[in-house]
């Protein structure tokens, strides 16, 4: 019996020591992250049968158990993934937020303000050189700020890759650790022991891993786990695959795992957060920012390109955007203008070009129609070259270049041609005769026009023949085609006879001016088509005085139009009773009639319509001879955006936040800032129009103004950051409560351990006393012997 009792006492001693050791271990690890409280399982030993009754044989240690809730651990892991994701994104978004700043001079909004303020200052004193260079500097500051922020975007994107790479390195080291622990645990398990601390360690590593990527943990044999990332095995029971971060074809950051095919769509953890930042948040914001820059360039240049600098019309102008050879046949001229690699879209519309004679100040306006689907670069060049005193070509760098003849200048402003009758078809010095109705004219192949020029002793008679080959469709002969035939006829030029096209109407003229100049249409088969039948043989004479109508004012209409001016009868301005000039619009509708009869003093201004005034000089008008002139009116002289696309007379160059810049020669010479529409130094209409750029609704920005769009970017970014932050806070709270629950199960309660300590210390003392008692009993017995 004694030995049994001693054994019972020994077991009690040993189990108490065991428990006390575990309590010590628990107390030692009370603050160890991931440590799970260990509990010693005790059970009473099997009772021994002694003399018919069962006697207990003490206590047995049956094992040490971890206080772990596996399900809770998994939830914590997935929560960690969400936290990692949100934390990484919040870090990135806060950084993006810092790019913009909310207010103040250095924030982009402040720069835009300063830019528009310098536009406004210059508008109040457009002649001031200091203010002009201020505007150039203000433009530079805006462009520079855009560049800087854009650079920050690309740096942020690059930084994202390097951050992802370093995180992936961490993932790999954790994965390897899990694999190593798997092996150790499996070994321990196979020998039947339970490796609690290894399991704890592995839980910690998996938890850390779940902070980096979204992991799924699967239990394997012998206590091993395998770990899947988005369905792809990262860690197997004994080895880990290598994860890597790469850029794909579209330069986006992607994750690969060795042994898995394709890219792994990681969404959770810091890696997932950074991937989302790099793939969505940064590009979204940066593309919006590019939109803003692009719209600023487009809207500003739209106004600027049609303005006139204080130095006056241009003698030479080169675009800033090169034309590209898309079909790679060695030349860019066969490309459609709308598809020639220009950064801005060329749409259907028209470009008006003014050519000014610098000596007289006389301007002539020409319209170049532009079709998105038909106008080629070559066609556009041809149209420009057709304009008198202009030549256009593509320079060596692929940029459009326009040059004016010496003594001439050109611009693209919406100013009204001040002397619209440059051709002298409206009471001008030349003898001129026009059909009563505008073209096209229904000619037939071989039709003739016989003319006698001069009425002196040796009048020159000759006949011009209209040949089918000179017309696109001779039954629909246009004024320009007929004028070409006349002007290319050797007899006509020899004898001083010419023709000009005034809009749709063709006008035949003597080359000479003055009362002595004359000609007569003497016949030919075309007189019927022109409606000259009643005038055959009538001598048409020129005038000593030209009526020279002068236009002033600014067109206030909102659509393109052409006004045609015709006299109602034959007569002398300011003299003939009842003489009127009738004005018709492009549709042929009557606009107004201007009384220029005996009550009119030549040189007095008369109102036409839409903000325009006209004055007529002294001279003779003839309704019989079809006197007329036309006036091209356009509120916007480039509805096709071709100037913006080519970068002609632009303020900003480039097409995105990254490459926006101020035109180089304009920075050097701020006099090139287009401030006026009329070309006068004190005219600041181009600048006041520029001010509207800021507040006008822009279709390119979804109907928002530049101001609003900027505000939207800021508030959207703010919302995103704030909501991420809020989600992070909410998730942290959830995690916190999960961790507290985990702590309830797995954490060490020092007080509890202390109670155990006291309890088992006493148990140890009791067991010792028991052994001593048994020993005393033995001694007593032995003493008896």
């Amino acid at each position: 019996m004694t030995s049994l009792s001693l054994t019972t006492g020994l077991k009690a001693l040993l189990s108490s020591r065991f428990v006390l050791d575990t309590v010590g271990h628990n107390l030692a690890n009370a603050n160890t992250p991931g440590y799970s409280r260990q509990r010693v399982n005790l059970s009473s030993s099997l009772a021994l049968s002694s003399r018919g009754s069962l006697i207990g044989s003490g206590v047995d240690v049956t094992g040490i158990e971890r206080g772990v809730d596996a399900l809770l651990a998994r939830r914590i892991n997935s929560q960690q993934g969400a936290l990692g994701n949100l934390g990484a994104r919040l870090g990135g978004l806060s950084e993006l937020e810092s790019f913009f700043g909310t207010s103040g001079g250095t924030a982009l909004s402040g720069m835009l303000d300063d830019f528009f303020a310098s536009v406004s200052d210059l508008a109040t004193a457009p002649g001031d050189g200091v203010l002009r260079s201020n505007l150039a500097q203000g433009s530079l500051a805006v462009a520079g700020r855009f560049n800087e922020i854009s650079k920050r975007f690309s740096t942020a994107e690059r930084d994202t890759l390097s951050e992802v790479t370093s995180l992936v390195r961490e993932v790999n080291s954790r994965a390897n650790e899990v694999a190593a622990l798997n092996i150790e645990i499996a070994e321990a398990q196979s020998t039947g022991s339970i490796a609690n601390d290894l399991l704890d360690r592995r839980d910690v590593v998996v938890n850390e891993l779940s902070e980096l990527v979204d992991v799924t943990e699967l239990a394997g044999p012998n206590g091993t786990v395998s770990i899947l990332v988005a369905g792809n095995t990262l860690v197997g029971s004994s080895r880990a695959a290598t994860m890597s971060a790469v850029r794909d074809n579209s330069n986006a950051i992607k994750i690969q795992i060795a042994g898995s095919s394709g890219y792994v769509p990681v969404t959770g953890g810091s890696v997932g957060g950074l991937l989302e930042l790099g793939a969505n948040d940064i590009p979204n914001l940066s593309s919006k920012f590019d939109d803003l820059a692009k719209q600023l360039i487009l809207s500003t240049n739209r106004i600027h390109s049609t303005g006139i600098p204080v130095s006056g019309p241009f003698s030479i102008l080169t675009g800033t955007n090169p034309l590209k050879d898309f079909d790679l046949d060695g030349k860019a001229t066969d490309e459609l203008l709308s598809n020639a690699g220009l950064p801005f879209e060329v749409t259907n519309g028209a470009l008006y070009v003014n050519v000014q004679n610098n000596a007289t100040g006389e301007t002539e306006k020409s319209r170049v129609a532009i079709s998105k689907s038909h106008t080629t670069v070559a066609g556009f060049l041809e149209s420009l070259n057709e304009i008198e005193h202009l030549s256009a070509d593509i320079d060596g760098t692929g940029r459009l270049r326009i040059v004016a003849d010496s003594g001439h200048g050109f611009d693209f402003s919406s100013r009204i041609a001040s002397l619209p009758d440059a051709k002298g078809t409206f009471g001008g010095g030349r003898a001129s005769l026009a059909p009563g109705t505008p073209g096209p004219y229904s000619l037939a192949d071989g039709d003739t026009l016989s003319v006698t020029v001069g009425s002196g002793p040796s009048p020159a008679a000759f006949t011009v023949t209209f040949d089918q080959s000179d017309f696109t469709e001779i039954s629909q002969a246009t004024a320009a085609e007929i004028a070409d035939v006349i002007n290319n006829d050797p007899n006509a030029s020899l004898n001083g006879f010419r023709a000009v096209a005034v809009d749709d109407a063709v006008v035949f003229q003597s080359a000479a001016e003055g009362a002595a100049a004359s000609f007569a249409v003497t016949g030919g088969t075309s007189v019927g088509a022109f409606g000259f039948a009643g005038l055959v043989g009538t001598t048409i004479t020129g005038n000593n005085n030209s009526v020279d109508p002068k236009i002033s004012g600014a067109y206030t209409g909102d659509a393109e139009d052409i006004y045609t001016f015709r006299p109602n009868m034959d007569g002398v301005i300011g003299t003939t009773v009842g003489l009127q000039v009738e004005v018709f619009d492009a549709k042929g509708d009557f606009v107004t009639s201007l009384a220029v009869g005996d009550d009119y003093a030549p040189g007095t201004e008369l109102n036409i319509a839409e903000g325009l005034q006209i004055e007529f000089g002294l001279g003779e008008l003839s309704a019989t001879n079809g006197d007329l002139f036309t006036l091209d009116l356009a509120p916007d002289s480039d509805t096709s955006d071709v100037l913006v696309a080519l970068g002609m007379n632009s303020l900003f160059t480039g097409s995105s936040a990254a490459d926006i810049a101020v035109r180089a020669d304009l920075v050097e010479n701020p006099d090139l800032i287009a401030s006026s529409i009329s070309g006068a130094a004190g005219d600041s209409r181009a600048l006041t129009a520029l001010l509207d750029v800021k507040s006008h609704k822009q279709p390119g920005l979804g109907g928002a103004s530049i101001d609003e769009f900027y505000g939207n970017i800021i508030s959207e970014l703010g919302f995103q950051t704030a909501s991420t932050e809020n989600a992070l806070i909410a998730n942290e709270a959830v995690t916190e409560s999960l961790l507290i629950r985990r702590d309830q199960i797995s954490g060490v309660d020092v007080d509890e351990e202390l109670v155990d300590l006291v309890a088992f210390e006493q148990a140890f003392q009791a067991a010792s006393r028991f052994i001593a008692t048994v020993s005393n009993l033995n001694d007593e017995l032995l003493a008896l012997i």
Partner: protein
Amino acid sequence: MRIGTFSTYRRVLSGLRLNQSANIRAQEQLSSGRRILRPSDDPTGASRAIRMERQISDISRYRDAISQGINTTDSGASALTSASTLMIQARELLLQGMNGTYSATDRAAIATEIDLIREQLVDIANRRAGDTYLFGGTATTAPPWEEVQYNGRSHVLYRGNGDEQTIRAGETLDVAVTLSGAAAFGKFAPTGTVFGQLTGAMGGTTADQGAGYSTLNVRHDATLPGSIGTVGLGLVSSGAFDTLLGDNTLTIDAVAGTIQLGTGEVIPLPTTPDPNFVIKNEAGGELHLDFTTFAGASYTGDVRGEGSISLDGVNFTAFDGTETDLELSDSTLDRVVHVDTTAINRAGDDLVEFKGATNVFDLLGAIADDLRNDEGLEPQALSSRLQNRLTDIDRHHETILVGASTLGSRGARLGSADDRAADVGLQLEGLLSNVADADLSKVALDLSRSEYLLQLAQASGARLMQMSLLNFIG
């Protein structure tokens, strides 16, 4: 329930952290005075704040432009006010000049004073504000009024344009801040051409074109003496000194001893054989006769003066007195007149006035010329002409006054726009402050509350962490 010691610490820690961050945020707001430090603090508020800051900066821009604009309108109005004072002086001088008791010398002195006034007016019309000329329309870099001498006259020509400089004084408010020089000093209401009455030239049937004053030069080219040789008379130097034009009847009444040219004054024949006897027709056209071989007989016959006529003093057109609509032009000043030559009976320079189309400088120049009376007009004709000039002066003076008041009211309009802008600006600043600025009393409260909570958390945490069984286990 088990509570892990670790979680006790965590709780204490997270409580401390929460209160600390509230405390720091309150401190940040307090030290910056702003409620929104980054967009995420209040995205809607941030975007509203940005919009309002934009509007405030727009308004300050408008106000800058307005103050510039008011400067310009003030300069313009004050220039026109001084011009008006000068006009009053000119009018008084003209009234003095019209007084019949003044001698020619007195009038010449007045003319000099008027010339001075004219120069001062040109000076005013070319006045600048900063670098820009006030009265050139939008042509602001060169003096808008230029004085040129042409064909014996001084002309002040307008080189500016008819536009007005405008400023942007509000989102949709463009205000003109200048007047064009033409509107201020040369507002035209043409009523036709008036010819001086020296040579007998009259307006033709066709309308004329031009502005200001021109000189019509009527030149005597040759004298056709008829048969004066039959009575022993001859021309002096082939008529080189003659100024008569057209057909003039020369009547010598030997019995009465008188001679008459046309319907001119009947005067006695020379008593000596005068080699250069001058007789004038009704218009003062002179015929120089050599009487040295005069036979003393009566004579009646036509003497014809042939001449030519010019508007620019360069291109002369011969006329024979039958043209009723002879066109003369001056291409330099772009003027065309039509002349009825039928009544021209002497050579000389006639003043051509494009009535209603003269600017104030040319008018004053013409007045000075009139007062000097270089044309030698009769007092009656002179006085009626000066009377007309008085009307013109009044017309121009009124234009100048209207101009001054126009600029004045534009300035006033800008002033009220400025007041409005200032009001809106203040309102916006108030709103912005509501949105973006920290409510200091609230933040101060937040700060002390978060401090209090932090202290509470610290105290309770310390107490909690002190509580351990260890304290009681000896």
